[in-house]
């Protein structure tokens, strides 16, 4: 399969404290795959995801997205690249005081006409698309509620609808289910799976639980101290590999 993302010798050092978050990582993400990033807190998963769309500036190395160098992109090109990579977050990152519809529409800002968007005006097509996406994640009736009136699971669905607005090639999810209960977690993961299989969106998601990774992941990339310690299919992770990723004292927990 063709590569969507090629990461070459990526390094990120946080200036304050001089913490080495990502240590010389080289890997690639294939088009249409469901890639799961595993690892403990602080292993560099979030940093890696945020380097791909440059929410965090990498210290060194290159990231190619569909043949274009993300790390060298200037503002306009970077925005055009970001439009094609959607992202959902652990804490949902919705504007809590805005309506659900406004939150979903804000995912379309990269495409919207600049002047019209300044006065909160969106085209008919964009609003229709927003409603269609809310319908798709099953909460069309919540469109005019304030985002903070929704439950956690519903908020994450709004996050997915916002991501769908970009009609992305890549969906990055940073611990999308860590703040949710197990049942809700599965329904959210199923939306990601659905996007991956039906729309052909490449999905890169970081997860805490190995069981979720086993259930949904096509390929697994495990990080530890900013380095890749495992790369392969979920079935290849045995007890020894597990201990290598999570440390000697870890026990595998099931999420059903």
């Amino acid at each position, binding site marked *: 399969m063709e590569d969507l993302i090629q990461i070459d010798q990526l390094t990120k050092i946080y200036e304050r*404290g001089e913490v080495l978050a990502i*240590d010389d990582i080289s890997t690639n993400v294939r088009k249409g795959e469901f890639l799961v990033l595993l690892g403990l807190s602080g292993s560099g998963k979030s940093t890696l995801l945020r380097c791909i769309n440059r929410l965090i500036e990498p210290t060194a190395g290159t990231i190619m997205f569909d043949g274009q160098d993300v790390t060298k992109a200037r503002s306009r090109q970077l925005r055009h690249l970001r*439009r094609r990579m959607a*992202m959902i*977050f652990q804490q*949902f990152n919705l504007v809590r005081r805005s309506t659900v519809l406004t939150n979903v529409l804000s995912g379309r*800002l990269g495409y919207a006409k600049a002047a019209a968007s300044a006065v909160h005006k969106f085209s008919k097509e964009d609003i229709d698309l927003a409603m269609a996406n809310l319908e798709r994640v099953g909460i069309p009736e919540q469109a005019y509620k304030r985002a903070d009136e929704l439950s956690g699971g519903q908020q994450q669905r709004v996050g997915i609808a916002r991501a769908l607005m970009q009609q992305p090639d890549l969906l990055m999810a940073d611990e999308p289910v860590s703040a949710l209960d197990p049942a809700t977690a599965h329904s959210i993961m199923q939306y990601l799976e659905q996007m991956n299989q039906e729309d052909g969106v490449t999905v890169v998601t970081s997860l805490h639980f190995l069981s979720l990774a086993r259930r949904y992941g096509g390929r697994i990339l495990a990080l530890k101290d900013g380095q890749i310690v495992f790369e392969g299919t979920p079935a290849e992770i045995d007890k020894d590999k597990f201990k290598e990723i999570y440390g000697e004292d870890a026990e595998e927990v099931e999420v059903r």
Partner: protein
Amino acid sequence: MRTPKKSKFVKSRPIRDQFDAIKPRFLAFMIDWMLWGYVAYAVMYFLQRYWWRYIDFYNPLKLPPWGWPLAIIGTLEMAFLTHAFTQSPGMAASHLSLVDDEFKSPSFGQRLLRFAKMNITLVAQPAVFLLRHRKPERLLHDSPATGIMIPTAILKDVVPVSKPCPLYKTYRGWFLFGILIMTFWLGVHIARIDLSKLISGWDYMAKIFRELFDIRLNYLITDVNTGGNLFSILYFMAETVFMALFSTVMGVLVAFPLSFLAARNIMGHSPLGWAIYSFMRFVFNAVRSIESLLFAIVFAIWVGFGNPFAGSLALFIHTIAALGKLFSEQVEAVDPGPLEAITASGARRWQVVIYGVIPQVLPSYLAFSLYRWDINIRMATVIALVGGGGIGTLISFWKGEVGRVPDAWGQVGGVILVIAAVIWLMDYVSGRVRERIG
């Protein structure tokens, strides 16, 4: 936090490291020196007060020309002493500890040597600072023989944490307590606190109070001739309210866009942004620190004494700065998550502000604006005392008529009553509105 790994990408920066290492020690010393300078000032003041005034009342006690170097050296030596022999207030404030090469408290001899060497260092250190290669945190007087000053945090990693010593058992605690007592004592003298004055002035005050409470409202609607101008209390009150209204509304409109320019999380992404941010910050802080009464003096000269436009402008300027600062702090306190999400979708930076920041800050902006409106009404009632126009004009007019008009104080009382009523009403209204928003 795991230990950082060294990488080839970490730049070496010797000068900056040296500066960073020296900074807390410099600050510690400056604090101690200034505290002793303050003590020296107090000593001079008390000498004058309790001794010199009985010798030569007409010529206040002054330092002779040779006294200045003496005072400077004296305070320096005291700072050296406390620095070498104690955990001084400055060292505590900068989180520094003095230890020997085994991380124990240095002996008396070591401290004495340290005290002596600090005198040499004061002269010699600047010369060798750049020439001699030393560990940056080491000054000339740091050596195994004299003890070494290190950040307390490092010490805590090396030796087991001991029970913290209560403040009243330390030199530092007593010194600071002494400074506190001294400040109180100085304050009583310098601010001329004299409770007996309250009693000796009481008879006159009681007379005025009686007249003041004999409230006259006969000019409530009827015009009064204030030096050629014919206006009533209610007219001036309306003028006052509209001064506050104009300055608040215009101030909010100007402060709103400027506040984003003074927010670090919006502007801190490029060098130009940093420059604008720092500039706006500086302007806000500078303008805010000048009372609107002082602006009113300037504008009264500019557009005419007693012209409410002068007062409005003064309040307007101050409102911009005060609200700009408060607003920008609100912007800096927003939840960064939504901004991150909107940025990640490929939005322009100003779109992120419109969709991510403004919805988050709008309620507090409204609350602060109403709060500012309260302040502006109160300021507008007194700004006439320096020629800014508004209802204060009547107060100064009637106060000027005391002795010429028999019920002048009663007229002042009437004006104050109307002011109090209107301010209470506005307070009540804005309080209710703020409740609604919150």
